[in-house]
């Protein structure tokens, strides 16, 4: 990917790759929720997650788990999405310290992305 993706694009790409992994295993895949637990809800193994990270690195050109984020902190679909969003938008790292500020930053990015699309 030559230009930095928007937050919404990152979310969409991560969801698509998760669905692809699930589809490879079980065929039909329903709607994903951000709160879905990668292991407990979706049944992804550590190796599935490693595959996902390799796949996303190839698609997005970044690996947030090399230095930025610990893979053990990723439990849900949203956690995974956020890790990649942080790789492109480091200011989102505020989330752990101040969720409200980070959420505001995320909303601002979403608004900006919407403006750019229209």
């Amino acid at each position, binding site marked *: 990917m030559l230009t930095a993706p928007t937050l919404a694009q990152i979310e969409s790409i991560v969801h698509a790759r998760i669905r692809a992994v699930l589809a490879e295993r079980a065929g039909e895949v329903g709607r994903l929720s951000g709160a879905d637990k990668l292991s407990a809800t979706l049944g992804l*193994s550590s*190796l599935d997650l*490693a595959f996902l*990270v*390799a*796949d996303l690195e*190839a698609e997005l050109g970044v690996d947030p788990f090399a230095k930025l984020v610990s893979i053990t902190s990723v439990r849900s679909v949203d956690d995974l999405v956020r890790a990649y969003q942080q790789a492109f938008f480091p200011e989102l790292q505020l989330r752990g310290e101040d969720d409200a500020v980070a959420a505001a930053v995320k909303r601002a990015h979403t608004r900006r992305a919407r403006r750019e699309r229209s």
Partner: protein
Amino acid sequence: MPQSRKVALVSGGSRGLGAELVSGFLDRRYGVATLSRTKTPFITDMLRARRRGHFHWSAVDGRDHEALRAFVKEVGERLGRIDVLVNNAGIAMEGILSTMRTSEIVEAVQVNLTAALVLTQACSRLMLRQGSGCIVNISSVNAIRGHSGVAVYSATKAALDGMTRSLARELGPRKIRVNSVAPGYFDSDMVSHMAEEQKQRIARRTPLGRLARIDEVASAVHFLTSEQASFITGQTLVVDGGITC
């Protein structure tokens, strides 16, 4: 230049066993990538002779993790895939542990072990996406039997064997095989410092009565990376003329 032929990455392919493996994989019509700290006459010859995009070399210091990762990325882009990784690069480190400099211990661990882990991590990502791959770690009989004066070297090689077994379990479900080859003493730069008497003593203790030829060690690697070894993973193949039996 992505290609249809299989691709092997051999660390430390500028001399000795690494160079033998590079030649062997090229003969078997693999695309081959190798890294070493310096360009040897062998590398110069290979670069001159293999002009059609099937051979790639870069000067990389195994202690530079970012450079190792960048090399793997470059190989993936140039050759399109990585089917085989041979963690061959290593340094001999001899001396009584209690009198060894800490910097020597650290260097041996970095070159013999950490570099292999970093290379394997980077290559395994490509292999995971491919859904296939084969990794061979060059271990040593020193990982199996204790010998005075090689505690650090033995530790790094035994660690490689541990990595082999764990990774075989970890990556097996994605059809990636991981094995070790543990050579005994063979004619190479690593034994060139030995006195002739010392080599003869080793030969006398070896049931087959001699040191290995380098091609005999390379053959074990080629076997493990071949289809003939398609159900072998997590194993250490000892190529030592029987010295550890």
